[in-house]
């Protein structure tokens, strides 16, 4: 019972606080607000843990949420009103609801299922819950080297708070249900965002959000989908909503950076691409970049001062790669990533649809498209220089790491159809609702 109460608290309270950051329709606020609340709680927990504040897994999130609740109304972004729910949209959303309920029911009966889920993220959550900080053996003792102590702690900090509130670390189901909630917030936010742009945008973003390979990850305990949800929602707000109200986008992108190392690189790629391709949003992009760096800085300082090494960086330092080897590996790494994204049962259907839309409607959201491609190229580069066994590294991670860049691709395609896209020089604030049945999407 206590675990169930803890779960409800960690879902409801952050969402209520996060919703203070948004105005407009309730459903979209719920989605974006839920994610903002999670980031506020996680950042609070991390900072309290790093500073050695007593009972950090509890006091940290409370402090983060109180501060976030006070800041929220001052930086509030109005996400506008949703158009009336068309019948075709109602059917789609009903199906997504069914999928969400199915996932939640499965999560109720599951432990933390994925190997990396328990060996990395949930192990660190247990350690944070037990010690109240990041100085325990899991983060410092070489016997836990496989747990990658340097990986950013947002997910583990949030899960640690949940473990601590639940009063036990023996059950994985609260964490699993929380991850489903995390996914659901992203879906609510993205579908609310997409519905304003019309059916094509909704279909493209939904086909990413319910892609089988993504859904499987949701109930595996991995950090890839949480990071992708924060990244996409931050990117959607930064590139499409009022540039004067950039704080929610900045916080979400910072959260993505604090969830996974590649999340930091992808968030910065989004920010850079938006700054270059949407000059009217440069100030917002600069704010988002600053927020991402500032939020990540305490963790980076902890890793640096604690001499916690990243296995890839340490391997490269110990044995610098030869340029010729990298050049030889590049085509192989490129082919591996290409195979993954065009293989129909995984992502091929989405990539094909996005390509058609981008060609037909024109890549109007070029910043997002460039960020998506840069994200994929980032992993090509990582695989080309990896000091780990190439095949092992690729096979063990490629299916998960492409999730976020392909989400950006779907977002770029979705933003290229429908209405509400700001011009390069203009500054469209809140997108206006499209007609109930748009007949000329993309014009």
């Amino acid at each position: 019972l206590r675990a169930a109460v803890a779960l409800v608290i960690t879902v409801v309270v952050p969402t209520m606080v996060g919703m203070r950051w948004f105005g407009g329709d309730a459903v979209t606020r719920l989605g974006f607000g839920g994610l903002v609340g999670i980031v506020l709680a996680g950042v609070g927990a991390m900072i309290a843990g790093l500073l050695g504040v007593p009972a950090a897994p509890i006091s940290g999130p409370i402090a983060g949420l109180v501060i976030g609740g006070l800041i929220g109304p001052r930086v509030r972004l109005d996400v506008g009103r949703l158009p009336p729910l068309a019948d075709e949209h109602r059917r789609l959303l009903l199906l997504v609801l069914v999928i969400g309920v199915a996932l939640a029911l499965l999560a109720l009966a599951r432990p933390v299922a994925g190997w990396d889920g328990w060996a990395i993220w949930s192990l660190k959550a247990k350690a944070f819950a037990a010690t109240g900080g990041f100085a325990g053996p899991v983060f410092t003792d070489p016997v836990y080297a496989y747990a990658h102590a340097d990986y950013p702690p947002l997910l583990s900090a949030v899960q640690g708070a949940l473990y601590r509130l639940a009063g036990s670390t023996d059950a994985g189901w609260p964490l699993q249900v929380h991850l489903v909630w995390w996914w659901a917030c992203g879906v609510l936010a993205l579908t609310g965002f997409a519905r304003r742009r019309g059916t094509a945008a909704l279909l493209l973003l939904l086909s990413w959000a319910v892609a089988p390979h993504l859904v499987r990850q949701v109930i595996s305990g991995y950090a890839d989908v949480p990071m992708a949800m924060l990244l996409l929602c931050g990117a959607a707000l930064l590139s499409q909503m009022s540039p004067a109200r950039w704080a929610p986008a900045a916080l979400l992108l910072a959260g993505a950076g604090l969830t996974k190392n590649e999340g930091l690189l992808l968030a910065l790629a989004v920010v850079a691409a938006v700054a270059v391709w949407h000059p009217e949003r440069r100030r917002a992009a600069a704010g988002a970049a600053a927020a991402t760096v500032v939020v990540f800085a305490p963790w980076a300082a902890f890793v640096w001062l604690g001499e916690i090494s990243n296995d890839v960086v340490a391997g490269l330092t110990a044995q610098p790669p030869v340029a010729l080897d990298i050049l030889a590996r590049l085509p192989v790494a490129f082919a591996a990533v290409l195979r993954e994204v065009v293989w129909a049962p995984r992502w091929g259907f989405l990539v094909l649809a996005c390509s058609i839309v981008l060609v037909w409607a024109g890549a109007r959201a070029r910043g997002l498209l460039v960020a998506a491609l840069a994200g994929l190229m980032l992993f090509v580069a990582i695989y080309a220089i990896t000091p780990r066994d190439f095949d092992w590294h690729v096979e063990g991670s490629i299916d998960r790491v492409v999730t976020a860049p392909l989400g950006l691709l779907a977002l770029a395609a979705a933003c290229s159809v429908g209405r509400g896209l700001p011009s390069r020089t203009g500054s469209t604030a809140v997108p206006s609702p499209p007609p109930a049945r748009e007949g000329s999407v993309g014009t």
Partner: protein
Amino acid sequence: VGARASAIGIVGRMTLLLVGGLVAGIAAALVVRPLWERRDRTVLAGIVATTAAIVLLGPTLAIEVSETLRFVRLELADAGVPRNVDPPLSEQLVDAVRQELAAGERWAVVTPTGYCQEDELAYQWLAFRLHPAPPGCAAPDVTVYAGVRPPGDAVVVRQVTDGAVAR
């Protein structure tokens, strides 16, 4: 017997995938059918992608249901194990070593695959299950023998059907 069981497993799995795909296909048809009237290519591209995602999601969810039932059957509440892989230790043995470990003590694990990190799954899985007790393979206070007979000089303090805990 093994081949027959394997064949039944394959048939069961295929049936599961087919049923999942069929149910998802019907759901997809119901959801996207009204949209087929559209003549807009961007909407049609979206319909194809969404239909494919939903149809493929059916078998995926069916597999996950099957996996979840397996976790329930194995009484795994904390950490799962990879598909088609048995838990490295029974819950009985995990409970036994938990009861034996005192605060501050370290442990090591021996399985048919090897000692500590030689069996990556057993080592990492047990490290998660036994946290906050850390592994200490160089000088363990407690050694867990899973599916392996303890050596003659080991002092067995707890014995269960599939293993033993020794000091």
